[in-house]
C-alpha cells in the first residue's frame, strides 16, 4: 500500500477519471449519480494523497508516456496547484450531492418533471468533463496543454449554462460561449507569439527564459486579455451576471465557485512566475486598479439588484476584484509566500459562494421565485438554508475567523507597510458593501410574514441544505487551518525554477 501511495502516476487520475466518468454518465444515464459520486469521492481522496506526496517528496513532475519535454506532455504538482485541486475536490463533492438533491426535487414536480429529467441527462456528463478540465488546468505543466483544458472548461461551462432552456439563459449562455471562445483564441494567439520567441511550451523549461523582448511582451498582453475575459474582471465582466444568475442552481454554483477561479489561477501563475521578470509595477498597479473598480462596482450593483441570484452573481464580480487587488500588494507581503493572500481569497470564495448560490437555489425551489422584496419569512421554513446563507455572507464580508479575513489582514498589512493606503480603503469599503448586500436579503429572511401568505410546499431534502451549510462552515473556519495551508503553499512554489528535477527516485 505504501508503495502505491508513493507512485507519481496518481497525478494523472484527477484528469483521466472524470473524463471516463463523463463518458460513462453519457452511456449509462440511469446510474449517473452513482458514477459522479464515486468520481468525486476518488477525486477528493487523490487530492489528499497528492498533498501527502507533496509534503513528503516536494514538487513532483510526471511525464505522460515517459516522454520528457520539450517533446512530451508533463504534469506537475506544487503547493498552489494542489490547494486549488483540493478546493475543486471539496466543492465538487458538495456540488455533486447538491445537484442530486436538486434534480430529484425538480423531477418530482408532476408538471415539468420530464423536462428536468432531460436536463439531468446532460448535466452529469458535462459536469464531469468540466471537472476533468479544471483538474487538468491546475496540474498541467505545459502552456499548450493549458489551452486545451481552457477550451474544455469553456465549452462545457457554456453548455451547462444553457441547460436551463429559458430564453434569458440561452441568450446569456450563447454570449458566454462567444466570450469564452474569444478568450481562448486570444490566449492561443499569445501562445503563438510565445512559441515563436522561445521555442518551447513546457512551463518548467520556460521558467527564467522570459526576457524583455517585444514578442514576449505581446504574448503576455494577449494571454492576459484572454484570461481576463474568462475571469470576468471589470470591465470584461458584462457576461457574467446574466450567465450565472439564469443557470440552474447547481450550474450557478459550479460557474461562480470554480470556473472563474481556473482562468484566474493561470493568470496569477503567469504574472508571478513565468513572466515575473518582465512585469512592471505600473502593470501591477493597473491590474490592482481594475480590481478596485470591480470591488466597488460589483458591490454597488449587488446592492441594487432586485433578484437574489443576480445579487449573488454581482457579488462574485465584486469578490473577484479582491483577487486582483492582491497583484500590486503581493510583492510587499512579508513573511508569507506571494500566493497566500490570493489562495485564501480563492478558497474562501469558492466555499462561501457555493454555499450562497446553493442557498439562493433552495430559496428559489421553495418559493418559486427569488425577488428580494418578497422573501419574507423564509427563515421560519428553511432555517438551515438561511443559516448557511448568513454564514457564507459573513465569510464574504471577510470577518474573522473566515479565510477571507486572513487574506484581508495580509493585504491590509502589505498596503499599510508600503504606504499604499488607498488599497486599504478599497478593501474596507468592499467589506462594508458586502455587509449591505448580504444583510439586505438577510433582514427579509427574518421578517415574520402574515399567516395566509405561507403556502404549503414540499420540504427540501437534506441533500439540498446540508452541503450548503457545511461549505459555509468550512469558509467560516478556514483561518484556523491557516498554518497548515501556508505549510502546503510554501512547498514547491519555488520548485518550478528547477529544470528537470527528474521525477522520483
Amino acid at each position, binding site marked *: 500500500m505504501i508503495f502505491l501511495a508513493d507512485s507519481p502516476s496518481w497525478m494523472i487520475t484527477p484528469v483521466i477519471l472524470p473524463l471516463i466518468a463523463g463518458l460513462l454518465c453519457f452511456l449509462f444515464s440511469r446510474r449517473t449519480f452513482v458514477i459522479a459520486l464515486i468520481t468525486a469521492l476518488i477525486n477528493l481522496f487523490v487530492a489528499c494523497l497528492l498533498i501527502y506526496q507533496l509534503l513528503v517528496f516536494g514538487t513532483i513532475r510526471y511525464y505522460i508516456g515517459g516522454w520528457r519535454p520539450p517533446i512530451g506532455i508533463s504534469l506537475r504538482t506544487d503547493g498552489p496547484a494542489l490547494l486549488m485541486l483540493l478546493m475543486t475536490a471539496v466543492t465538487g463533492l458538495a456540488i455533486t450531492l447538491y445537484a442530486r438533491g436538486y434534480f430529484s426535487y425538480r423531477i418530482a414536480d408532476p408538471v415539468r418533471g420530464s423536462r428536468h429529467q432531460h436536463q439531468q441527462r446532460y448535466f452529469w456528463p458535462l459536469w464531469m468533463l468540466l471537472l476533468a478540465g479544471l483538474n487538468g488546468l491546475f496540474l498541467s505543466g505545459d502552456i499548450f496543454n493549458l489551452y486545451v483544458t481552457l477550451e474544455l472548461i469553456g465549452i462545457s461551462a457554456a453548455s451547462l449554462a444553457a441547460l436551463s432552456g429559458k430564453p434569458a439563459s440561452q441568450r446569456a449562455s450563447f454570449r458566454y460561449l462567444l466570450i469564452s471562445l474569444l478568450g481562448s483564441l486570444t490566449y492561443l494567439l499569445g501562445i503563438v507569439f510565445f512559441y515563436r520567441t522561445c521555442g518551447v511550451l513546457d512551463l518548467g523549461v520556460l521558467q527564467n527564459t522570459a526576457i524583455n523582448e517585444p514578442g514576449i511582451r505581446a504574448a503576455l498582453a494577449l494571454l492576459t486579455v484572454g484570461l481576463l475575459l474568462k475571469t470576468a474582471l471589470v470591465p470584461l465582466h458584462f457576461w457574467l451576471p446574466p450567465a450565472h444568475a439564469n443557470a440552474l442552481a447547481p450550474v450557478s454554483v459550479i460557474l461562480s465557485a470554480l470556473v472563474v477561479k481556473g482562468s484566474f489561477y493561470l493568470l496569477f501563475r503567469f504574472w508571478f512566475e513565468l513572466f515575473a521578470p518582465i512585469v512592471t509595477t505600473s502593470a501591477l498597479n493597473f491590474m490592482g486598479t481594475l480590481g478596485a473598480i470591480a470591488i466597488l462596482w460589483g458591490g454597488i450593483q449587488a446592492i441594487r439588484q432586485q433578484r437574489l441570484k443576480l445579487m449573488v452573481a454581482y457579488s462574485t464580480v465584486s469578490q473577484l476584484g479582491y483577487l486582483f487587488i492582491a497583484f500590486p500588494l503581493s510583492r510587499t507581503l512579508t*513573511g*508569507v509566500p506571494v500566493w*497566500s493572500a490570493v489562495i485564501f481569497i480563492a478558497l474562501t470564495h469558492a466555499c462561501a459562494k457555493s454555499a450562497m448560490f446553493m442557498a439562493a437555489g433552495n430559496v428559489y425551489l421553495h418559493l418559486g421565485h427569488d425577488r428580494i422584496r418578497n422573501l419574507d419569512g423564509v*427563515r*421560519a421554513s428553511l*432555517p438551515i438554508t438561511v443559516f448557511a446563507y*448568513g454564514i457564507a455572507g*459573513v465569510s464574504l*464580508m471577510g*470577518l*474573522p*475567523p473566515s479565510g477571507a479575513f*486572513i487574506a*484581508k*489582514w*495580509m493585504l*491590509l*498589512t502589505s498596503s*499599510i*507597510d508600503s504606504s499604499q493606503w488607498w488599497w*486599504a480603503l478599497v478593501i*474596507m469599503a468592499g*467589506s*462594508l458593501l458586502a*455587509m*449591505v448586500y448580504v*444583510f439586505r436579503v438577510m*433582514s427579509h429572511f*427574518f*421578517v*415574520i410574514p402574515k399567516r395566509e401568505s405561507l403556502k404549503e410546499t414540499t420540504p427540501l431534502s437534506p441533500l439540498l441544505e446540508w452541503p450548503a451549510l457545511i461549505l459555509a462552515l468550512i469558509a467560516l473556519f478556514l*483561518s*484556523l487551518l*491557516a*498554518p497548515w495551508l*501556508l505549510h502546503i503553499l510554501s512547498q514547491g512554489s519555488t520548485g518550478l525554477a528547477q529544470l528537470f528535477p527528474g521525477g522520483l527516485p
Partner: protein
Amino acid sequence: MNSGQLLLLSILLSSFIPGIIIFCLPEENHRLRTLLNLCGSIVKISLILVMNVGIYYGHVFEIRIPLIPGVELLLNGDPLSALFATLSSVLWLLTTIYAVGYLEGSPNRSHFFGYFSLCVTVTIGIALAGNLVTFLLFYEMLTLTTYPLVIHRGTEKSLRAGRNYLIYAFGGGAVFLVAVVWLQTIVGPMDFSAAGFSPSYIDSHGPVLSLIFCLLIIGVGVKAALVPLHGWLPQAMVAPAPVSALLHAVAVVKAGAFGIIRIVLDVFGAQNLLLLGVLPLLAGVATVTILYGSVRALQQDDLKKRLAYSTISQVSYIALGMSMVDQPLAVIGGLVHLVHQGLMKITLFFCAGNLAETLGIHRISEMRGVARRMPLTMAAFSIAALGMIGIPPTVGFISKWYLGLGGLAAGNWWLLLVLVVSSLLNAWYFLPILIKAWFGKQQGEWPAEIAIGRFETRLMLLVPPLVTAVIVLVAGLVANAQISPLAWVRFIVQGYTL
C-alpha cells in the same frame, strides 16, 4: 492541553453548546430549553469563579492558536477579564430567568434563546481575549449574534433599527481592523500587557500612534455609544426588554467600554498615552457624552428611551476614568463603574420591562401611582435610580466618589464640575419618575393590564430585578470588604504601575 486551558475552553463551551442544542430543539420544548439555559449559566458562573480564584493566586490561563506569522488567537484569563466575565455571566443568569418569564408564549423562542446563548459566549470571548486580533474576532461576532435579537420582533421598525445597528457596528469594526493592522505594522504583534508597547516607538511614530489611538477608540466607541457614535442605541430600544438589558448592561455597550479599558491600559499603557498627550481628547469626548446623554434623557417621555440615553451618559464615566490613567483612584472609579453601571442599569431595564409587560406602561407620564400597584418592582427601580444619581450607600456613589477623588488628586477641578452637573441632571431625570410613581395618583385604568396570580407580576419577572437591586445596595455597603467588586478592582489596579 493543561487544566487551565481546559477551564477556559469549558467556560466558552458552557454557553455555546446549550446554544447550539437550543437551535435544534422544537419550539414547544420549553422545559428542556429553560433547563439547558439555566444549567449552562450556572456551570459558567462556577467555572468563572474557579478561574477567578486561580487568577488571584497567580495561575496562568492561556490558549494560543497561531494562524499566520504575526497573527494568533489568544485567550487569556487576567484580573481584568475576570471582572468582565464575572459580571457578564452573573447578569446573564438573571437575564435568562427574566427572559424566560418575559417571552412566555411568544413565537420563535428557540431562535431567541439560541442567539442569546451565543451572544454571551461571544461576550465572554471578548472578556478573555488576550490580544487585539482575538478581541476583534469576538467583537465582530458580537454584532452578528446580537443582530437577530435586535430584530427579533421582525417589524418594520425593528428592521430599521437593526439596519442602523449593523451599519454603525460594522463601520466601527472596519475602522478598528485598519487601526489594529496599522498598529501591528509599527510595533509588531503584541499581547495585552500591563506595560503596553515600548516607549521608543513614540519618538519615531508619535503622530501616527496618536491617530491609531483615535481610530481604535472610534472602533470601540461605536459600541460604547460615545457621542457622536451613539445613534444606534436609542433606536435599538424596539427590541424586547431582556435584549435591551443585554445590550446595555451585559454585552454590547459593556464590550465597547471594556475595549476602551483594554486599549488604554493594556495596548498603549499609561506612560505612552501621557507621552502622546491624547488623553485630554478622550476626556473631552467622555465629558460631552456624559452631559449630552443626560440632557437628551431629560427630554424623553418614553421610559426605555430615557434609560437608553441615561446609558449613553453613564457608560462614559468609564471612559472618563480611563482618561485620567495616571491617577489610580480615577482608574479604580472607572473600572468599578463597569460593574456598578451594569447592575444598576439592568435593574432599571428589568423594571421597565415589568411595567410594560404587566400594565402596558411605556411612558413616564403614565406612571402616576404605579408604585402602589407594583411596590416591589418600583422599590427595585428606586434603588437603582438613586444609585444612578450617586446617593450613598448605593454602588453608584462608590464609582463617583473614586472618580472625584482621582480628579482632585490630579487637580482637575473641571472633572468635579462634570460630576456634579451630571449628578444633578441624573437627579433631574430620575427623581420626577420616582415622585410620580410613589406619590402620584393613579389616573384612570392602566393601559393594558393583565391579571397575574399572587404577586404583582410573574415571579420570574419579579425576582431578577429584586436580586440586582439588593446587590446594588449590598455591594455599596460592603464595598470595603474582602470580596466586592471594588476589592477586585483594587487588585486589578495593583497589577499596573500607574
